[in-house]
């Protein structure tokens, strides 16, 4: 067991030095482990299981998030347009032909954040714009999509020449928020301009979440850079964290029970193991989604005293 703890700590140290932006030094880790009970003599041990979970945590820091934002623009937005231009022009590779066409398409695009301006999807827009050297004019708020005829009349599109509306988001968990934000909005836009392209591009999404967006809204495309399937659900049978070989002394069922027990003191069902019991182990430089197990991010503000290891910045419901 000691050997296991040693190797888990060494792994965390490596992660801390390379990717975790120094957020998990040993004193921080120990402080977090103190939240858990020490077992008397016999395993299974809560702290060892907590450490095991932590060693499997996926963290994307500032540099990585920026890179993913670059990928989002380049691979999800730009490439399909380029491909279309090439195919419409006898597969040309001539930038003198492609360049202006793409520029025209881009000018007719507007990028928006999915959700409330203060939510993390919007927060990233700034970096998205920076990393991809885009003009400010291409970015609008939701309310700027429409305008009223004569200021009070029927709804119309403020920029009738816009052919693409691209919604950017960082994380799509259950899809609940995405659907509620997009469904009516997309319908309204389509009614006014049926052939407009509306895309929802997100950095991380669960398979079920992104499917909901596709099925329950009229977007043309809903794509994630990273899709998290059921193997990312921590305690599922297919969980990638508990595939053989699992270290001796680590038990998936015990681990789940432990997280469930603590989770109950932190959030209400059915979010005890992360929002809608997503059971995820993921965090970012700017946010730890509440789909991640609460034991990771809960900060004791409204509940039992608890020191998080990767704190979250909660959405505040007014």
């Amino acid at each position, binding site marked *: 067991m*000691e050997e296991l703890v040693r190797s888990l700590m*060494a792994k965390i*140290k490596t992660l*801390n*030095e390379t990717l975790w*932006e*120094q957020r998990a*030094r*040993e*004193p921080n880790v120990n402080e977090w482990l103190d939240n858990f009970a020490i077992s008397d003599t016999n395993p299974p041990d809560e702290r060892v299981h907590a450490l095991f979970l932590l060693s499997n945590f996926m963290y994307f*820091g*500032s*540099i990585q998030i920026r890179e993913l934002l670059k990928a989002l623009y380049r691979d999800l937005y730009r490439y399909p347009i380029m491909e279309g231009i090439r195919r419409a022009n006898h597969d040309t590779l001539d930038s003198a032909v492609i360049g202006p066409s793409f520029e025209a398409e881009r000018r007719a695009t507007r990028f928006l954040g999915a959700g409330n301006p203060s939510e993390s999807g919007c927060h990233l827009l700034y970096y998205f714009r920076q990393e991809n050297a885009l003009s400010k004019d291409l970015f609008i708020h939701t309310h700027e999509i429409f305008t009223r005829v004569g200021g009070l009349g029927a709804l119309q599109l403020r920029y009738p020449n816009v052919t693409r509306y691209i919604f950017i988001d960082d994380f799509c968990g259950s899809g609940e928020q995405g659907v509620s934000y997009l469904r009516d909005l997309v319908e309204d836009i389509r009614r006014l301009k049926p052939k407009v392209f509306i895309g929802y591009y997100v950095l991380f999404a669960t398979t079920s979440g992104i499917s909901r967006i596709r099925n329950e809204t009229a977007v043309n495309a809903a794509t994630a850079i990273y899709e998290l399937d059921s193997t990312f659900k921590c305690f599922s049978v297919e969980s990638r964290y508990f595939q053989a070989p699992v270290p001796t002394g680590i038990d998936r069922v015990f681990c789940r029970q432990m997280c469930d027990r603590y989770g109950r003191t932190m959030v209400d069902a059915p979010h005890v193991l992360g929002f809608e019991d997503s059971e995820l182990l993921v965090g970012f430089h700017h946010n730890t989604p509440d789909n991640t197990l609460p034991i990771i991010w809960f900060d004791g503000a409204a509940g039992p005293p608890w020191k998080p290891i990767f704190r979250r910045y909660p959405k505040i419901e007014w």
Partner: protein
Amino acid sequence: MKDAAQNPFNITKAVDFSDQEIHDYWVDMPTGDSFSSMAKPTSPMPMLIVGGKGSGKTHLMRYFSYPLQRIRHGRDLLEGIRRDGYIGIYLRCGGLNSARFRGKGQPDEKWDDVFAYYMELWLSQLVLGTALDAVGEMPEVLSREPNIVRDLLSLVDLREHTSPKSLWDLNLLLRGLQKELDVAVNNSGMTGKLPVHITVTRGDLIFGIPKVFAANLSPFRDCLFLYLLDEFENLSEVQQRYIQTLIRERQNPCSFKIGARTYGIRTLKTYSADEENKEGSEFEVLPLDTILRANDRYQEFAKRLVAKRLAEFNRVPSNVETLNSMAQSLDKHFEEFEKSPFGRSETAFVTDKYVGRDRPYFKTLRQNLEKGLDADAARGLSVPDEIEKAIALLRCPEFPLLEKVNIFIFYREWSKCHNLQKAAKEIADDCRAFLAGTLKHGRYQTVLEYFRADLLAQLLRETDQRQRYVGLTTFVEISSGFPRNLLIILKHIFAWATFNGEFPFRGTPISIRSQQAGVLEASEWFYRDSRMIGRQGQHVMDGINRLGTLFRGIRFSEKPSECSCCTFSSDLSRCTDVARRVVDLADKWSLLINVGGQRDRNTERVDAKYQLNPMLAPRWDLAIYRRGVLALTPEEIDAAFNPEHAGKFDEFAEKRIARMAAPFFGHARRPLGGLPPERTQSLFADGDYD
């Protein structure tokens, strides 16, 4: 996220240093032989600078190279070179990418010629470029240039190429010829053809350019043109043969220093009438890490290296005096175990952990005695009560270390089939007298002196503690003449200390646990890094693993036959060829360190002695300091290092360790029970303590 940049030991390879950094971080030996006197840059006699990874070989060679001369001498460059007496032309053999000079459907002889020609073009570009950089602006050059160019061109078969008018143009011509050759070689893989026109006779430019420069330009008049060929191991055997030929056919004013890893010298043969170069006549050898290891100022040198590193990192100026005082005060940055009489505070963990409980070594002893009693193999004890009495005599609760000494001697007596009651009583008397300071020097002191480290190690193991590799002096010792290994250990320790929330080198000493974690990680790195290129790597690692396991078995047995067992000796001439080769490889790759024995350069070793590289010690919880030497038979060496004999190894090892294990100590048991007669002198040597 800038953590890595904040670790002062982060750059540990010479090759990651810029020229300026080599200059800034340079540390020489404290007194006596400086590196200059060792490397003899002005000696015309060629030299092989040989060393394992991390011995500082490249560092040393670069120090003598022209770019470093330029930094050292600044504005007085030419005067500086004149005073130096040499100009260093540095070449990395790896840059030739010479693996491509083979196969591709061409005969070997053709490749020999191609390689020789390629070297000629390569080296001449280097020497020409270097010389021009040094003197290019001089008026003397401009006036003598036509002569020089003419003399040099007489050595080159220009054919259709335009005659260069200046030295710069000549250099460009050489570059062009090299490129032509490159293209021809590279395409031959696809075309199956290799059209080559050799424009220079081998050696003509390599020796000719320096000659012409020396004859025509005053700064080079008495200057040695020193070709520093590094990474020699990157050349194949035939390619090395060519270089050996150059060495043999060396002409003034040139000389060579060849930098090679210990495993990297593939041949000493030449193309000069198939003669072989001999140490002492055609070249001398500087075995760098061996020399460092043997140098009694190595500890001091190493600590100055560390001090220099910290000074540069903290941008603190350092001259020789400040460096010395910094070096001397480094130890205090590392937490160590308190020294106390009879190891009382060092073994406090035992007294603390086992309050009111039987200590583990007594538990084991009791079990052994019970077994011995049952098998009638415990002379002098006939009933269980007597076991307790004997044990009670061996106790000395305040000093667990002395208890271990007592038990050790007791096991020794047992292995000699002595009367155990008597033995226990004598030991108890000795122990009392020793504590009182009245014991005359004898076996008690000897055991404590020689086996202290082992007994402490056993205590640690028996109580589930980590072994102790702690303190800067220990780390220097572990590095064994390889400065880079020291820096790597410190790098890992620094990283662990930072991770653990400490502030290394800024006040409070680095904790013991950070040191231990760092050493362990460095040791793991070393083990991993020692994988070599090629299949033989596996055989070597297997052999090392067997050896390590054996040493560990001995160290933690009841009655270790050798103290601080990490060294073995054997008459290798009686082993199989394969085993000998594998041992030799392990030596060349510095997994084993040759520490003595009679060595005759021109014949086979007779009795070799090797220590397991201390960097590997933490892997098997072994000692760092060399003391006892385990004499292995040729069969045992074969079993350890020859894969065909490996099946026998476990048996050999078990047999050896059985001799150290209670209750039988390897004695054959009689059919009707009982022991062989009491012996006054054990059949089994108790090891020779170096």
